[in-house]
């Protein structure tokens, strides 16, 4: 399918109630103390006199002006077909979702610094950018979420993806600093949160401290086996670290389980790639051993 047509089609999927950029944006404005107005944002004025949001309630001819930093939250009227989104996510059409979400979010870009109900979409974009290995973008979204304390769950998610993006972006020093800042590098016992164990295990892997990494990721698997969210990536990491440790039989066993439990997932795809790599490594090892024995 032609790419631009595809984008348009996707826009159609997601945006059913969004006005054009220049037009007023329908929103609910909530102030500290939870006083709120229904109406439209008609503009923003940033100048020497301050940062002002112009908001029309429709009841008075002139919009009211509110300091941007005094607004507690903006609730935009975003109409997204969640079912379609889930389906595409399930089909792992990440790039398409990112593209569509970017378009859907574009009208609100000017207000992205103000707390809003867009956080969950930003969180989704953060995850999608991570899945597509765009770690700078992941960090951009994760940073904002991590700094926003209105929703502790999303904030925690932001922190997690900050760490993951730094590690997968091969920035171990910054990752280490971040983990230390969040206190994640301590108390890595069996009852530690799986994400904390997993992230630290990843960092150890990056630093080639494979035995340490293995012990941590083994804790995720052994003590959080009923948590599919972390089990899936942990099992893949486990297979990778077993490979690095030269324990190919163990790695292959994990891969077998991944393909049994997590069929048609990213982890399964990566596990299959790893399997091919192991076959190669095993062949090399056998060759070296036979050469060595010949030398002896």
């Amino acid at each position, binding site marked *: 399918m032609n790419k631009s047509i595809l984008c348009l089609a996707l826009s159609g999927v997601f945006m059913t109630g969004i006005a054009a950029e220049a037009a007023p944006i329908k929103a609910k404005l909530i102030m500290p103390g939870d006083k709120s107005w229904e109406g439209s944002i008609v503009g923003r004025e940033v100048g020497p006199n301050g940062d002002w949001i112009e908001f029309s309630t429709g009841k008075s001819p002139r919009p009211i002006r509110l300091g941007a930093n005094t607004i507690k939250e903006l609730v935009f009227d975003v109409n997204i077909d969640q079912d379609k989104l889930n389906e595409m996510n399930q089909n792992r059409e990440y790039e398409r979702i990112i593209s569509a979400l970017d378009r859907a979010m574009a009208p609100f870009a000017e207000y992205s610094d103000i707390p809003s109900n867009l956080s969950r979409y930003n969180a989704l974009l953060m995850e999608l950018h991570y899945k597509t290995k765009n770690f700078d973008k992941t960090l951009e979204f994760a940073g904002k979420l991590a700094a926003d304390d209105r929703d502790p769950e999303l904030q925690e998610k932001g922190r997690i993806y900050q760490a993951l993006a730094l590690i997968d972006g091969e920035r171990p020093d910054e990752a280490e600093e971040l983990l230390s800042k969040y206190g994640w590098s301590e108390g890595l016992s069996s009852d530690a949160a799986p994400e904390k164990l997993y992230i630290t295990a990843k960092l150890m892997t990056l630093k080639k401290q494979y035995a340490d990494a293995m012990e941590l990721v*083994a804790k995720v*698997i*052994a003590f959080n086996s*009923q948590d599919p969210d972390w089990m899936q990536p942990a099992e893949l990491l486990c297979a990778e670290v077993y490979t690095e440790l030269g324990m190919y039989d*163990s790695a292959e066993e994990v891969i077998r*389980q991944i393909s049994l439990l997590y069929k048609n997932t990213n982890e399964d795809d990566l596990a299959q790639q790893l399997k091919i790599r192991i076959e190669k490594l095993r062949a090399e090892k056998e060759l070296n051993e036979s050469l060595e024995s010949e030398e002896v």
Partner: protein
Amino acid sequence: MKFLCRSYGHALKATLVAVALSSGVAVAQDYSSMGITDLVGSADRMLQRGDYRGAIPALIEVINRTGPLTDPQGRDTAQTCRFQLARAYYQVGDAPAGVTVLETYLENEPRKKERMALRMMAQGFFDTQEWDKIEELAMRLLALPDLEKEDLYNANLLLGQARFRQEKWAEAVEPLGYAAKNAKDPRVEGLCQIMIVRALVEAESWRELFGWIPRIYRTDSKYDISLNLTLMKAGKARFEDDDFLNALLLYRMVLPREKLLEFADVRIEKLTSKLEADIKRGIPEGDIEERRTEITDIKESKKTLEELPAYEDEVTFRIGQIYAEVKRYWEGYVLFDELYKKDRTSEIGEASMLQSVLILYDISQVERAEERIILYLEERPDGQYARTLLSMMERDNLIKQNFSGVIGMRGYIESMPATQDEDELSLQSDMHYMLAFGYFQDRKYKEAGEQFSVIIDNYKQSQHVADSIYYRGMTFMMQADYKNALTDFEQYQAENEYGEHLSAALFREGVCRFGLEEITGAEAAFTKFIDTYPEDVLVSEAYSMRGDIEAAKEATNEDPHTLDRALTDYRKGIDKATTSLQASYAAFQAAKVYKLEYKWQEIIDLMNYYMDRWEEKADVAESVFWIGQAQIELGQVQDAVSAYLSSIERFGNDAEQQGVDKIILELVKVANFHLSEEDREGLAVKLKLKLTNIDPRYEVLRLRLQVAQALLQGDDIAAAMGAELLEANTDLKLTTPASLSLMCDAAVDTGNVDEMQRLYDYFVTNYEESDLLWHAYRAKTYMHLANENDKEVLWSIDEAQGMFGAEAFMGWAQIIKADTEFRMGKLTEAEASYNMVMGVPEWRGPLFAEAMYGMGNCRQEAGDLEAAHSFYQRVYLLFKSYADGDWAAKGYLASADILLKMGREEDAVNTLKAMLEDPYTNTNPLAEKVRAQLKKYGSQ
């Protein structure tokens, strides 16, 4: 488990609205007199009011009247009323009557509400639990064309449940899956998922099950108690069938009991309070009953769970076992570790400790394993796995040849509490046995023997007793305690007719008898060994040993062929050898015998035979050395030189080929004694050329050729080269005995104590068998001398003499020994040591003079001036020419000095005068001193 179909009431109302043809009010109860339209209107009003009971007679009356009609409108009315009548029965709780009516409805036409009728019928059978009928109805419903989503959902829900109840596990999954996917009510979705899991477990459809599990575990269904119990039960069954992978995946989904109970309590609380609120608000009795049943079900499953014996630790342990079994060692380890940390003293805690250590060894985390074992031993020396773990650690160290590690465990082994348990006793004897081997391999034979004795004396039932007797014999033998060794070897043979070491014990018996100088007995033992075990791995050595015995025999008229027999045995030794070392020993011993008999060609033939037989494993350099010697004796000097050069070049870059160093020394000897000046120069040129053209990577060969070149140029050049190598801090990896010898001597000459130690260590570690090793001992002796450590000096000399005896090159050792004893005031020992020098003809020369002078010193020190004078006198009378007259001069001076002490001044002066007249001493530097002394006495 009971379910209702979705939207049932709503759909029925819609139907009723359509059915109502008019809205007349029926006031009379005698329906027989009413017209059909009024009857229908009356029924409709009652239904709309919710008066289902009241509507029933009116509907029956309509059906009675319209039932027999055949026109389309009449049939339509009859069917509509049948449907409504069934609905009314359902509403008043008389489902069986409703079902009967629906059956008639479904047998007639038209069936505008067929889908609803089928669903209602199925619902009716729920109460009577007639699952087969429900299944049939659901299938009938699904067979209808153009079903709406709602109907599909309900039909699948009914079908899935019906099949599930009939234990048609595999068939239940698909409809339940559809229902779970399309359920709007999360509670129904959850229940469907739970049924799916149970069905898949029962159907043993593992692959499909594991596809469902991640989905289910993202929901609260995972807290369902019956689900967890099902998984646990299935896990156990799989585990017992050795189906580890499936067992693992099932087990690891089981949640801890406290989490399940906690969730159940919250759920009961929520459902109860909601129900109470809804009752106050007013809900149908059926709903109340249904929700109460749900609460009761949860309470019952909770009770079942509470009554179960604790399963969490057992499940964790099993999961750990499975992980280890499928080689996911680290996952297993952290689980066992957790169990152990949780309770170190419980049975499962201790078992987990053992498992965790086993895994740590599997994943090569030996340090951690050992730390854990030590901690356990410190905490619980009486723990049930103390001996098992200690024995494991000991075995691992033994296998890895970490003998000091094995020995280091002695304290723990000996501090194990006493036991009468047979298994524990067996383990304890294992540990002593391994400890004994630790010592044995570390060459600590005395301690090894003690440990073997512990087993022999204290663990008489141990499987190791017999072996311990044999190996204790070995420890005695290695300490040259042949008497005790012989006793053990004989005992072993007597008590172990089929023992593993029976043949070896007989062979060692021969060795011991040889050591005890019971030569006849030794020969008999070797002969018996050869006859009894002709294919044993030691038979080559037995031939060689018997060959040695024969070679040592004096040939007599009665027995003139001893050497021939020796040679026969050596030949057999070569033929029967299973290692190159065995063959080499026999071959070179034979060469020595041939040499005694001047059979040079035989030496050449034998060496060629040996090299052909062992090819690249043969000690070619040593063989060439022997061939060269023989060729020289046969006058084929140039051939020998060529063979030597060729061998040096061929094998010289391999530092381990020590024969090359022997060839170098032999080559130098041949050059000095058998080559003309011209040929020597030719040889020097050849060496130079080889050095020029050498591959730069052949560094060992280069150094060997340089050493050969230096040695050919004489002792001074060789010594200078040794000093250069020392100065250049030469990488010892490039050195071999020839170069190391020069370096050792240079270290002694320059007094470089650090180098003496370093070179000694390297030499001994790498070339322990070298003929040139004495240079290393000499360096070590001088090092102790420099450190003024007389005891160590004597130890070092003892070692060196133990290895090299009174060889020509060992005079230095004896003289230093005597000097040291003298310095220590041990005058008798010192004099005996000096005297011993004179007993070795090979040391004739300055050493003799020095020894004689030393004996004089001893006597002088002891105050026996006469005897001292006599020794000094012998020095200048017997050894005038040695060391350019130095010793003679010293003798004259010492003699004169003694005479003065004895008051015989005139004799002293005469002695000094004699020195000045003696042509060997009158030009000696000491002569000037004598002249000055004589002036003092006024005579010249």
